[in-house]
């Protein structure tokens, strides 16, 4: 995939470029907002990673200008600000996701992959099926091999979030933000305990733990 990175911090940019390239992406890098905007306007990238604070043209302005030009390019904001309001501002300006510095590379990679896959899960399906696990989004019920599984609302949301992103690594922070709408980092292992409850209900083989990164649900399970 073609990714455009607009970031003025040289070390960080090199680190991101190296990491994404290792993971099979092609990365273009711009160090200034205005040159980043020109590159993004060419329309040949699949994802834009943009810092909030940039020389010449800040990230918010860049993304607003892109959106005014009807660009649908998925945008991931990076921010040093890490403030409470900055995330809302970033998303309101047309960003699709927001990541505060400093971050673990695995976190960035999981979000990049999620954004790159986004078009495939858009639309509103009425049910999601993964192997013998079926989720009815209208009745809000889950069955496995035809047997109904009783889930609490939060467990349902958690499973839905994972099932909408099959074969993708979903980090703990993504779950906290996406399922709970929590934008802080609890010291307690609430995600882990909920995942383990979910596993005990739907079977421990479905949700895999990806060491150091997060969780993943497999679309096509290998035969046991």
């Amino acid at each position, binding site marked *: 995939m073609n990714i455009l990175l607009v970031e003025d911090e040289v070390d960080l940019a090199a680190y991101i470029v190296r990491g994404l390239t290792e993971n099979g992406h092609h990365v273009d890098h711009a160090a200034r907002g205005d040159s980043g905007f020109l590159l993004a306007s060419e329309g040949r990238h699949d994802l834009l990673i943009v810092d909030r604070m940039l020389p010449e043209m800040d990230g918010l302005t860049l993304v607003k200008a892109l959106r005014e030009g009807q660009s649908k390019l998925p945008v991931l904001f990076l921010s040093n600000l890490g403030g*409470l309001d900055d995330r809302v501002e970033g998303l309101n300006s047309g960003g699709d996701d927001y990541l505060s510095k400093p971050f673990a590379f695995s976190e960035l990679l999981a979000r990049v992959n999620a954004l790159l896959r986004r078009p495939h899960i858009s639309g509103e399906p009425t049910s999601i099926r993964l192997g013998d696990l079926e989720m009815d989004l209208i009745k809000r019920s889950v069955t496995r091999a035809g047997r109904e599984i009783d889930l*609490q609302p939060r467990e349902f949301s958690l499973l839905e979030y994972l099932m909408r992103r099959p074969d993708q690594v979903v980090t703990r922070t993504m779950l906290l933000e996406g399922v709970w709408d*929590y934008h*802080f980092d609890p010291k307690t292992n*609430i995600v882990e305990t909920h995942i383990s409850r979910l596993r005990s209900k739907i079977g421990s083989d479905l949700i895999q733990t990806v060491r150091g990164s997060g969780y993943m649900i497999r679309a096509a399970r290998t035969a046991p």
Partner: protein
Amino acid sequence: MRLAQLLKSASFRLTAAYVGLFSVSVGILAGLIYFLATSGMQSEVRTRIAAESTALREEYAGGGAPRLLQAIAERQRGRLIGGLDYTLYNANGRHLFGNLPVVSCKSGWVTFTGPPDGDEPEGELEELGVLVTPLADGNCLLVGDDIGKVRKFGSLILRSFGWVFLLTATMAVAGGIFLSTRVFRRIEAINRTAEAIIEGDISRRIPRRGVPDDLDQLAATLNRMLDRMTSLMESLRHVSNDVAHDLRTPLGRLRRSLEEAGRTVSSPEESRAAIDSAVTEVDGILDTFGAILRIAQIESGSRRSNFCRLVLSELVTDVCETFAPSVEEAGMVLQTRIQPDLAIRGDRELLVQSLANLLENAIAHTPVGTVVTVSLKGLSDSVELCVADNGPGVPEAQREQIFKRFYRVERSRTATGNGLGLSIVAAVAELHAAKLSASDNGPGLKIAMLFSEAA
């Protein structure tokens, strides 16, 4: 104190302006009185002369010159001080009576100066206002009176005003200087104190005179402000000391373990483990910084603009459901007593984090088997959110301290956490104008947030 400084002082300028205003008004008053008094007197004299002339013309009309002379003679006999001067002369200019000079005999007013008649100041001539009345046969009647006295009275008025004004203005200026000096001295004292504080002597305070006037009150207010600033500076210094100390410890640990890894690690697995533990250590430090920044942001109050009505009952229920599995996993029991449909105005995200911090605090610092109770109840005009446990509690002396940044109760020093969780709760409570308290749960710790305004 130099005179020039005094003359430039605000209080002296005020006095000077006041004296100026007073002078102008005295001037106007004096002019007005002068004008009214002299014009009144003058018209009174003229009225008298005119009446006299009319009466004498009638005498003449009745009996000619002899009758007129007789009437004048009668008037002369009864002459008192301030009586009138009479003169009659014929068409040839020959005087039949009196000694006023001859003028062309046309009806009207003329002014003469004549020899002094005794009531003038030394060396001045008498000033006469004279009404000329032509009579039949070419005779001419002149009736006059001393009008110099009008002018004299007027100047007396002006002189009196002049003296009064001079005296008053002198007193005003002297009083102004006196008062200005006093005010000036006290302002100087404030100034000197401020200068001393700028120079670095923060303990200096403005001296007070002990009288409850405005300057003394100002001094008291400024002193209170200085006290507050001193205590803020003190706490700031304290916090930065704590930050330095709290970061030195994990950084020291990190350095030691890295050094040790560099010396002893041989296999890739070992180096992997060393790196992982270093990353964990660094994450802890970053967490601490994140929490410090977050507290600063909450304390700035900018979040208040995002306040909206939120049903606290739902929020608390939701957070409790989220944390219940973790509490149970820690071997504790979570009880909830949540009154439904209680709403306040506030910031959802911050309130969620506060409650999460309170629950995590209970999980981290109480032993297995502890019962943690979250309750939310509506009082008459407030809503109380309470997180209580029946663990070991916190000694009374330390209860208020636990909300301070980096404060950690001695026995929990080894537990995880950065000592900022409850500080965030305190900042959020402050932002919501909620009263935060820690009390004895007998046994255990009970932390309550009292939101004063229900929405």
